[in-house]
């Protein structure tokens, strides 16, 4: 199994675009690490740098403490699942999966057994004679994964492998993939723009934006203790509520005086952005009053938008309640906030606040 390390890696395209901007991270043996970020933030480029398909502009990439910048893709002992799957259209499923073994001059019979067992594992044994164009999206994806798995590489790279699937299949494959890559020994780097996928599957998440790594951490840490507003907003569905408090009066409407005092010390002018995840707002039994403006049923829960007035302006927050509660738009309600779960952002960065 491989350990991977990025040391001060930059990737520029031309003068203007910096697709990867000073990336430093470490992936340990057997870890399942996700690169997460909005489209265009440099995830694919990072993966391509690892694969050797693009050259770094600066910095070093190490596998098992050896610098591999100059190695060609075929020398790196990695497998990659492309976003488009990149199945060879002129070869059938068997040949597609067998290619990495044939290139390595494995004997015919060995190839046959290996491909057979991989196909079995992925449930595509009956498709081996088909050409890629005769497969459904989900089947193609399995073939692409089969091609990656078959030679038991030490490092797997997956570029948004679920992005081209429909919603139901995507959910099912999420679970299957996780199980699969935990069962085969191998370090996995997984790219997605879907934060739910990242949270559900990873040991560790690397959040990127505009080529810059924002945060590296376990899913729970990313979710609960985002380092900045970008990460807080990007991760979590529905999005975190961001409330802009302009002064101490605004704040005192929302939480206790000890917190307000601590905050005032930090901000001087009392301006702060407050992040509240919807699940941390409790309807009823509270001393904040507002009016329901919108109800969005989400199956078991209702997502309720509530408008309330701070000192200087009106704000809107979203919160969850069970769908058994009787509520309708226009109702007057009250709510409270779990103060311990609040996030505070000064100049986009999260700050810890005592009290």
């Amino acid at each position, binding site marked *: 199994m491989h350990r991977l390390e990025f040391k001060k890696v930059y990737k520029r395209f031309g003068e203007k675009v910096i697709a990867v901007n000073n990336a430093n991270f470490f992936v340990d043996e057997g870890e399942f690490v996700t690169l997460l970020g909005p489209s265009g933030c440099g995830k694919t480029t990072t993966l391509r740098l690892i694969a050797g*398909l693009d050259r770094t502009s600066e910095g070093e990439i190490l596998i098992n403490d050896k610098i591999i910048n100059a190695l060609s*893709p075929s020398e790196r002992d990695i497998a990659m699942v492309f976003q488009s799957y*990149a199945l*060879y259209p002129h070869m059938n499923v068997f040949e597609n999966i067998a290619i990495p073994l044939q290139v*390595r001059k494995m004997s015919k019979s060995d190839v046959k057994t290996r491909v057979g067992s991989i196909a079995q594992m992925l449930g595509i044994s009956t498709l081996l004679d088909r050409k890629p164009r005769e497969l459904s999206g989900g089947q193609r994806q399995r073939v692409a994964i089969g091609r990656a798995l078959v030679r038991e590489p030490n490092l797997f790279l997956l570029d948004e492998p679920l992005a081209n699937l429909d919603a139901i299949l995507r959910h099912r494959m999420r679970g299957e993939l996780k199980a699969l890559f935990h069962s085969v020994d191998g370090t996995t780097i997984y790219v997605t723009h879907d934060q739910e996928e990242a949270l559900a599957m990873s040991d560790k998440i690397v959040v990127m934006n505009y080529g810059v790594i924002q945060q590296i951490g376990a899913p729970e840490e990313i979710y609960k203790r985002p380092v900045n507003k970008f990460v807080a907003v990007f991760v979590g569905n529905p999005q975190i509520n961001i409330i802009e408090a302009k002064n101490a009066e605004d704040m005192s409407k929302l939480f206790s005086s000890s917190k307000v005092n601590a905050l005032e010390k930090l901000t001087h002018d009392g301006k702060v952005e407050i992040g509240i995840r919807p699940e941390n707002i409790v309807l009823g039994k509270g001393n904040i009053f507002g009016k329901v403006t919108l109800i969005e049923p989400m199956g078991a829960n209702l997502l309720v938008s509530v408008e309330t007035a701070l000192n200087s302006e009106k704000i809107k927050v979203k919160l969850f309640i069970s769908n058994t509660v009787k509520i309708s738009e226009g109702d007057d309600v009250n709510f409270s906030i779990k103060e311990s779960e609040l996030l505070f952002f000064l100049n986009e960065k999260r700050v810890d606040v005592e009290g």
Partner: protein
Amino acid sequence: MRLKRFLLYVGVTIMAFYCLFPIYFLVLDSIEPTSVSYSSPPILYPVAFTFSNYIGVFENIPLLTYIKNSTIVSLSATAIVVLIGSMAAFAVAKIKFRGSNPFMNFLLILGFFPAATMIFPLYEMFANFHLLNNYLSLILPYTSVSIPLTVWILATYFEQIPTALYEAARVDGMSRFQAFYKIILPLGIPAVSTVAILNFIACWNEFILALTFMTKENMRTITVGISMISGRFSYQYPWGEIIAGALLVTVPLVIIIFIAQEKIISGLTAGAIKG
């Protein structure tokens, strides 16, 4: 609407006539006995029929030798240029080496220089190497002049093959050359066959180099052979036989056209419009 249809069919008839009427007169002449074809003024419709010109052309003209020579030269040059041209096209389209754009533009410009501007140095070169009246003296320059079109059409086509396939091949452990002949070349077969056909026709039809480098009767190619016949009969051109020969050697080309017209048209448009 009616009128438009009518005009359309008038136009279609004119077009068919435009392409075919010279051929009609040629066919007519080739099947007429000498007594009829040399009548002046000419008779523009069939009055007598004979095969004698078609027999005579094989007896009086070494037509089969010409065909053999043209075939050897055209096939060899086509095979070589497709091989080396597809490699270069691959480097341009998939390795995208630095300077591939200037390289392509250079090829394009090179393709514009007529053979006349380089014919004497080539002649001198082949004379020095004793290669005149040798197939190589045509195969080698034919290969060279076919390079621009070949590389352009193939590179354009290869570029449309998703780069992810090439990259997947590299990640799967293939060298560049393996990725070329196992993935890109098989996927490029449609374009490869198109350029093969176009190049074959172009070599088959070439004239000025063949005229200059093949001076011995038994080394001549079709185009030179047929069009130079006249010189040997001082008393009267054997028009019937010449035209019979011309029509005969056109048959293979027409067959190729019938089989591969879609490919030819697509190749021509790629070559002309893209270029």
